[in-house]
């Protein structure tokens, strides 16, 4: 019986490769949006500068720090599982999930404030703005929104992973799901690394 368990056919490298291919498609999805941003920015650079003044740099920077920490804790949890310390791994994964929560709360306040002052796609205020500002805010809402969707999916995935680590079905002999969940989470971080300077810091 033990033999048959050890003989279980598994291809961890293949699993990770598949995850990377998926990440490439995600990068090209966001890549397309960054292209739109680049063209619109070169066309309306003054309006983009003006519109970006309305974004809260502090919240943006805070979310950057939160995401970087959460990425590190996922990576640390992989080392913990590799060393057979599932308890520690669960703790670090929980820190990651808390970070995801903090990010979403910040986003709630950030978007909430904009929506309250009437700044959202299709609003009356938006119709009175010049075309460059409308482009900026549309891109802002769409890109951060799509990023947030990925963050929520990643958090759900990592919740499942955390439960599996807790139940020891992810362990030092078999942890490719944790690695792939981690890869997805790092993708979320990677996208934010570019979104933050391009949207918040161009004032």
């Amino acid at each position, binding site marked *: 019986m033990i033999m048959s368990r050890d003989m279980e056919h598994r291809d961890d490298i293949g699993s*990770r490769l598949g995850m990377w291919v998926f990440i490439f498609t995600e990068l090209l999805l966001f890549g397309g949006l960054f292209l739109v941003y680049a063209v619109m920015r070169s066309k309306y650079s003054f309006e983009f500068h003006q519109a970006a003044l309305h974004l809260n740099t502090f919240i943006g920077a805070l979310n950057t720090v939160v995401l970087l920490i959460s990425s*590190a804790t996922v990576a640390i949890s992989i080392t913990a599982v590799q060393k057979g310390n599932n308890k520690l791994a669960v703790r670090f994964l929980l820190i990651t999930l808390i970070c995801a929560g903090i990010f979403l709360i910040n986003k709630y306040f950030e978007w909430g404030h904009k929506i309250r002052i009437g700044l959202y796609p299709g609003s009356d205020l938006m119709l009175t703005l010049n075309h460059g500002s409308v482009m900026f805010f549309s891109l802002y809402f769409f890109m951060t929104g799509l990023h947030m969707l990925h963050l929520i999916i990643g958090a759900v995935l990592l919740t499942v992973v955390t439960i599996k680590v807790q139940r020891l079905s992810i362990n030092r002999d078999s942890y490719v799901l944790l690695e792939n969940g981690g890869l997805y989470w790092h993708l979320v971080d990677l996208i934010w690394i570019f979104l933050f300077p391009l949207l918040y810091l161009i004032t």
Partner: protein
Amino acid sequence: MLSETTHVTPYRTYMVVLITLLVLTSLTITVTWIDLSAFTVLSALLIASFKAGIVMKYFMHLKFESSLFKILVIMVLSIYILVIILLFFDYLFR
């Protein structure tokens, strides 16, 4: 099942990487506060690319993957850069 190629990254490495990333983040913010006009975006993007490289190398374990992974990443990024160049050739010279 632990293969001999499995690399266990020490906790310390991740802490060093995290601190580096945080320092680079504050550097990005500082750079954009100082007005470098045309170079502001360029420097912010360069720092962001550097950060992304660190994340992929250490957090995403690209450093310890087989060369197949590295070749694929380089290919995808090259294609994307090529698309950017082609797009701006079309956009700026039409």
